[in-house]
């Protein structure tokens, strides 16, 4: 059928069809296998839809790997979420035992049975009670399953663990033939079935069931390394469908199974150009004045006691101050301890917790495996929907996994966080003091921003230095700044360049004081000069005044001279007049005399 649909002839035919028909038919060949969603967290994502519909799927794994739970959850979710009744054929556990075992996960099988949605049939095979003589077949089992399916109209069937038949019956040839027939028959029935099988030595199942069930095989695994166990799931094969091929860690907790669709292999996460403040205004300034990008990942690494936790807490505090939610994953200290310690630097985290903005999740790294940590983080983020998270510190995770594993975990975490637009701040402890390293659990290449805190030992004291190694897409300062943790909080000191480079701590203070002194001195010097100028000016002014005075007196003298001259001229004239008059009186007549007097009078006036 399938190949036929894909031939070019068929395509041509399709094209000639009317559009209405085409739209109807086109659907069938383009869609891959129809699938039945399991409802199990994350599983449907990695299988791109669920289990193959109407076909049997083999789930194999060691004892205790979660086969029965997986199958039960498949049925229960089928009933609750998709309204598809289910049948559980148990070869191992009695119905009551099964109900009890899964009750702890919140599955109420009894209720579902009462509602006629679920049927549990316990097939008990006890070798001591059974004798075989001659030929037989397993029609009895078929009839039982068939009856169970028909009585509630089941769409989903679980056979757990059908291999128990092998323990009860000796005629292997019959058994194998019958099993083959059974799976074929289940297909014909059109039910989506799960068959579980115990893992054998070197084979997927002890009895080679994978031979019969060839559509979909899922392997569950339960590994213990360094005394920490991790459950994993792998899709060994899935005929006719795309699927993830990795081993996916999964978690069994109070909500049942959660599979982690760990790597989205594509780098397609949305990016935001919104910025979030670091909580340290001076650090924001180093990052073009605005802080990090929303949804970016920030690594803070440094040696012990350089203030990584303080910086992380300050970031969390800032996020909450702005009304965002934040989860603080503490792997080293208890929440109370962090809250108390942050009080000492003027940060009140309690009020954010009270408001429900901040959530602490503290766990020892050794509590469970790395994958479990990831699943926990994943679940919490899905529930709490924070704007940012802080992981403090990731270096502690190394204790439960190798560097490679930690890196893979963090890659997937960063991937996930990016897709959720959650800003993440990691802190990491570097063991050595030489800062060359690209170590830091190898995440430095993954993170968007990397801030390094380091000790600066100078003049017999230890100070903290901070610099930004990288910050993608943000113009950032290249300076090494002194990072000061004070009662009022965190701040970065201005750069003090001395003759031997950057000055920190008391050297910086000394430098500051010296600068101040120089300032005062130079101010003083300036004052003196000013005074001198003033004095000079005064002196000159005085001289100008004297000169003016001199000039005035000269002017006066000159003026007096000219007046004197005039007077003299006048007096001389008068004298001349008087003399002439006198001469006239002595020798001249009366008429002439009178006229000349009048004339003389007129002249003077």
């Amino acid at each position, binding site marked *: 059928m399938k190949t036929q649909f894909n031939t070019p002839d068929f395509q041509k035919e399709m094209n000639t069809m009317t559009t209405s028909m085409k739209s109807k038919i086109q659907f069938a060949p383009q869609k891959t296998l129809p699938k039945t969603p399991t409802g199990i967290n994350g599983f449907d994502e990695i299988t791109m839809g669920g289990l193959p519909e109407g076909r049997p799927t083999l789930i194999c794994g060691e004892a205790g790997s979660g086969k029965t739970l997986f199958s039960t959850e498949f049925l229960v979710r089928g009933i609750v979420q998709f309204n598809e009744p289910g049948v559980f054929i148990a070869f191992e556990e009695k119905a009551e035992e099964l109900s009890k075992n899964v009750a702890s996960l919140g599955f109420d099988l009894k209720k579902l049975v009462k509602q006629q949605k679920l049927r549990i*049939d316990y*097939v008990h095979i006890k070798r001591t009670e059974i*004798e075989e*003589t001659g*030929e*037989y077949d397993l029609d*009895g089992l078929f009839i039982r399953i*068939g009856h169970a399916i028909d009585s509630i109209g089941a769409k989903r069937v679980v056979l757990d663990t059908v291999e128990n038949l092998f323990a009860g*019956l000796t005629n292997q040839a019959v058994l194998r033939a019958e099993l083959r027939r059974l799976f074929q028959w289940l297909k014909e029935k059109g039910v989506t079935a799960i068959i579980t099988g115990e893992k054998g030595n070197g084979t997927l199942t002890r009895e080679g069931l994978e031979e019969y069930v060839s559509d979909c095989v899922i392997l569950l695994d339960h590994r213990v390394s360094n005394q920490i166990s991790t459950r994993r799931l792998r899709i060994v094969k899935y005929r006719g469908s795309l699927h993830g091929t990795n081993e996916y860690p999964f978690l069994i907790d109070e909500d049942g199974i959660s599979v982690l669709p760990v790597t989205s292999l594509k780098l397609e996460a949305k990016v935001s150009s919104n910025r979030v403040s670091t909580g340290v205004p001076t650090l924001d300034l180093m990052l073009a004045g605005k802080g990090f990008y929303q949804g970016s990942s920030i690594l803070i690494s440094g040696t012990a006691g350089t203030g990584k936790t303080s910086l992380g807490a300050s970031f969390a505090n800032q996020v909450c101050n702005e009304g965002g939610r934040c989860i603080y994953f503490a792997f080293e200290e208890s929440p109370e301890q962090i809250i108390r310690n942050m009080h000492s630097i003027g940060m009140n985290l309690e009020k954010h917790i009270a408001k429900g903005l901040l959530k602490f999740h503290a766990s020892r790294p050794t509590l469970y495996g790395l994958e479990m940590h990831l699943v926990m983080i994943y679940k919490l983020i899905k529930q709490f929907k924070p704007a940012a998270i802080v992981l403090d510190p990731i270096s502690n995770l190394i204790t439960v996994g190798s560097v490679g594993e930690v890196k893979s975990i963090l890659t997937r975490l960063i991937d996930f966080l990016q897709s959720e637009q959650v800003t993440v701040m990691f802190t990491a402890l570097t063991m050595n003091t030489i800062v060359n390293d690209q170590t830091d659990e190898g995440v430095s290449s993954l993170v968007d921003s990397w801030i390094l805190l380091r000790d600066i030992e100078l003049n017999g004291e230890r100070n903290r230095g901070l610099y930004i190694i990288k910050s993608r897409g943000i113009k950032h300062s290249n300076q090494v700044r002194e990072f000061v943790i004070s009662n009022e909080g965190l701040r970065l000191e201005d750069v003090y360049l001395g003759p031997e480079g950057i000055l920190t701590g008391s050297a910086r203070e000394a430098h500051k004081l010296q600068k101040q002194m120089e300032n005062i001195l130079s101010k003083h010097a300036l004052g003196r000069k000013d005074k001198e100028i003033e004095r000079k000016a005064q002196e000159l002014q005085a001289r100008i005044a004297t000169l003016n005075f001199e000039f005035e007196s000269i002017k006066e003298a000159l003026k007096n001279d000219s007046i004197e001259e005039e007077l003299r001229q006048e007096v001389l004239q008068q004298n001349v007049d008087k003399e002439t008059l006198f001469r006239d009186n002595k020798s001249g007549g009366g008429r002439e005399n009178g006229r000349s007097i009048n004339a003389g009078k007129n002249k003077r006036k």
Partner: protein
Amino acid sequence: MAKAKAWQLRLYIAGETPRSQTALKNLKQYCEKHLKGQYEIEVIDLLIKPQLAEGDQIFAVPTLVRKVPEPIRKIIGDLSNEEKVLVGLNIIPVGMSSAVKGN
């Protein structure tokens, strides 16, 4: 259907197949031979009454179940091997009782 019968046997079959016919024929033969007058056979066709399969934990057919005397014993197959059937049902064959007892 007298209750007093010491042997109550139940044969589960799935339809009138040659195999179930053989089984029934064999069973009747052995009972006549060794348990004459003390037995009672009930044949249950699971195609007609599938709900009965669960009660006696039937998964293969034909299955012979010895309900009484207890404990319950099951023999699956067409009962073609007389000795196995007798051992399975714990029937002491006629004429061999002393030998078995002596054993």
